[in-house]
């Protein structure tokens, strides 16, 4: 049965894939006349070399964990939720509304409320596509694409209208009250005598994201609901035989998915911007698709993939500072990483597998 040892499967192959992606990226850099080694050094140093770099990397990572989880849970029910972008935007609306509505005295009170409202609004935005899929058979891919566009319009309407601060140019809400300020890493680590940059956006949400990874794992592999979701995702006919109600599973899964996406708002809206700005999601919903796919819908995979993309975003920004490499280069590197680790996996896996099988045979296993 065994084709290769587990470490090769979970570590060696992805690392080889990444290596190839980086080599090709390096070639592209060479082609536009930049030094790839220096670029790599800058990226690593810029994203992990200082506490500020780490703070940025983890901030982006946090966003991608949430959207990755959103995509991941839907995938377990074999649903392709392209709507993470819109759901995260609505999550932001929920967070903003509740944080602006109440003069929060302390974040310990504000955070649960924000989690509740962010999740609720994200879930609500996922509900209609879910309901239409479950009851009317409308394809979830189309409806979620449409709901991304509709969300953008809705947010545009609200942020240039009722929610905008009168007299201000920016399409954004007022700043949230002081009491809604989430501790940043700097504030969190100071009591332990650890010096962390004051000026990095990473905040308590990162811990919430880690918690969500754990919750996701429990949910999918340790609860009955997760069991039902996976069973439904594997085979609808078998699920019906087992008494699992497809419509209910579709709707519940999408609600959870939307809630995860909506939770992203506690990081970017509550934790970083401290107000709701237009287009705050900035494509994280789409990155989430790649994160979940690359992470094989498993929380550890999602975490690693999110970290990788966080690294690319932060390290890529440093490329611009240090080497005047156009910011689109990061998009190219991202594309290559997704392609190599996600879609061209077998290109590396097959030869490696052959090597291992040859070794097994030689050893007479």
């Amino acid at each position, binding site marked *: 049965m065994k084709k290769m040892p587990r470490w090769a499967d979970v570590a060696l192959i992805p690392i080889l894939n990444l290596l190839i992606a980086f080599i090709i990226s390096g070639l592209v850099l060479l082609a536009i006349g930049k030094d790839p080694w220096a670029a790599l050094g800058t990226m690593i140093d810029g994203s992990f070399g200082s506490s500020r770099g780490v703070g940025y990397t983890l901030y982006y990572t946090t966003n991608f964990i949430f959207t990755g989880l959103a995509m991941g849970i839907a995938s377990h029910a074999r649903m392709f939720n392209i709507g993470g972008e819109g759901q995260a935007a609505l999550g932001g609306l929920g967070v903003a509304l509740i944080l602006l509505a109440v003069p929060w005295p302390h974040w310990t009170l504000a955070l649960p409320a924000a989690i509740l409202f962010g999740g609720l609004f994200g879930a609500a935005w996922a509900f209609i596509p879910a309901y239409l899929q479950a009851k009317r058979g409308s394809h979830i891919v189309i409806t979620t*694409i*449409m709901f991304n566009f*509709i969300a953008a319009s809705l947010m545009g309407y609200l942020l240039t209208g009722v929610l905008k601060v009168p007299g201000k140019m920016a399409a954004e809400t007022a700043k949230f009250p002081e009491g809604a300020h989430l501790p940043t890493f700097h504030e969190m680590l100071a009591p332990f005598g650890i010096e962390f940059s004051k000026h990095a956006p990473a905040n308590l949400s990162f811990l919430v994201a880690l918690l969500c990874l754990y919750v996701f794992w429990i949910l999918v592999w340790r609860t009955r609901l997760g069991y039902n979701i996976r069973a439904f995702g594997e085979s609808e006919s078998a699920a019906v035989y087992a008494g699992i109600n497809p419509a209910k599973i579709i709707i519940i899964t999408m609600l959870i998915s939307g809630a995860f996406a909506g939770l992203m708002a506690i990081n970017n809206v509550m934790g970083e911007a401290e107000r709701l700005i237009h287009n705050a999601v900035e494509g994280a919903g789409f990155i989430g698709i790649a994160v979940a796919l690359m992470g094989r819908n498993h929380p550890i995979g999602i975490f690693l993939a999110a970290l990788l993309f966080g690294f690319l975003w932060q390290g890529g920004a440093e490329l611009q500072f240090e080497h005047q490499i156009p910011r689109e280069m990061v998009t190219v590197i991202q594309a*290559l990483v997704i*392609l190599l680790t996600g879609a061209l996996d077998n290109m590396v896996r097959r030869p490696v597998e052959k090597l291992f099988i040859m070794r097994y045979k030689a050893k007479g296993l």
Partner: protein
Amino acid sequence: MDFMTLIAIFDSTLRYATPLLLACLAGLYSERAGVVDIGLEGKMLGAAFVTGGVAYVTGSIWLGLLAGTAASIALSLIHGVASITYHGDQLISGVAINFLAAGLSIVIASAWFGLGGRTPSLPPEARFQNINLPLADTLQNVPILGPIYSELISGHTILVYVALLAVPVTWAVLFRTRFGLRLRAAGENPGAVDTAGVSVVRLRYYAILIAGLLCGLAGAYLADFAANFVKDMTAGRGFIALAALIFAKWRPWQAMGTCLLFGFLSAAAPYLENKSFMGIEVASQFIDALPYILTVIILAGFVGKAIPPRAGGQPYVKEQ
């Protein structure tokens, strides 16, 4: 709304629909053969960029079209190698292609023209001419039918007619040829194709090559229409085409109907905008979202369940 306005709206509908339709048919070939393609957007974008650049440099839109199509096909081939040869996840591969095109087009364009993401404007001689169908001028003054013929039907660039023509051609290819039969079978049950002695891999490659070609035309249309390439100029049309494909249940005539409908909603929207300024403030976002809202409503109310090709999205693996 008077008659000429209606003509103008339909005229605009046709132009909006053209790139959608080409991309939608591209997706149709690909998905009918069992290869899901969410990389339509990226392929269009890549083609638009290369078309814009090459047409400017050579002064010939035809060479631009050729090069743009080649670029789109190259992206298709990446999709093919990943998802057909290496049995990779088709969705991941599509996502990657979208990113790749978005990034590379700008990186290369910057290095090439130094205008950032843009390519220089095409002079009129490096663009497609509007084709005036025979008698268009003569018939112009015939009531009703005259304007319909000379304004609406006549006077578009060649790609509009190519897109419209691609619909019956696609139908005929899919349902009236050996190739079409095999292609559809590859998307429904590749095992049946394989055991019938036909290579599934080759069929799927053909399908994605055709998809690359059509996306190339769609991208070239955009570059030609705007007379240059601008960063991210596809503006989500690839995703709308994908939605149209599902809406049309993977059928060519329905695809045309859907793309025309989407085109119509986009074309009509600006006419609906309130003429009072306060009205705009309230309504413009709503008008903007209207096509999407209507799509959801129509989908929920009238279209019902769309059953994709059964083997869609799965790599064909016969031996591990």
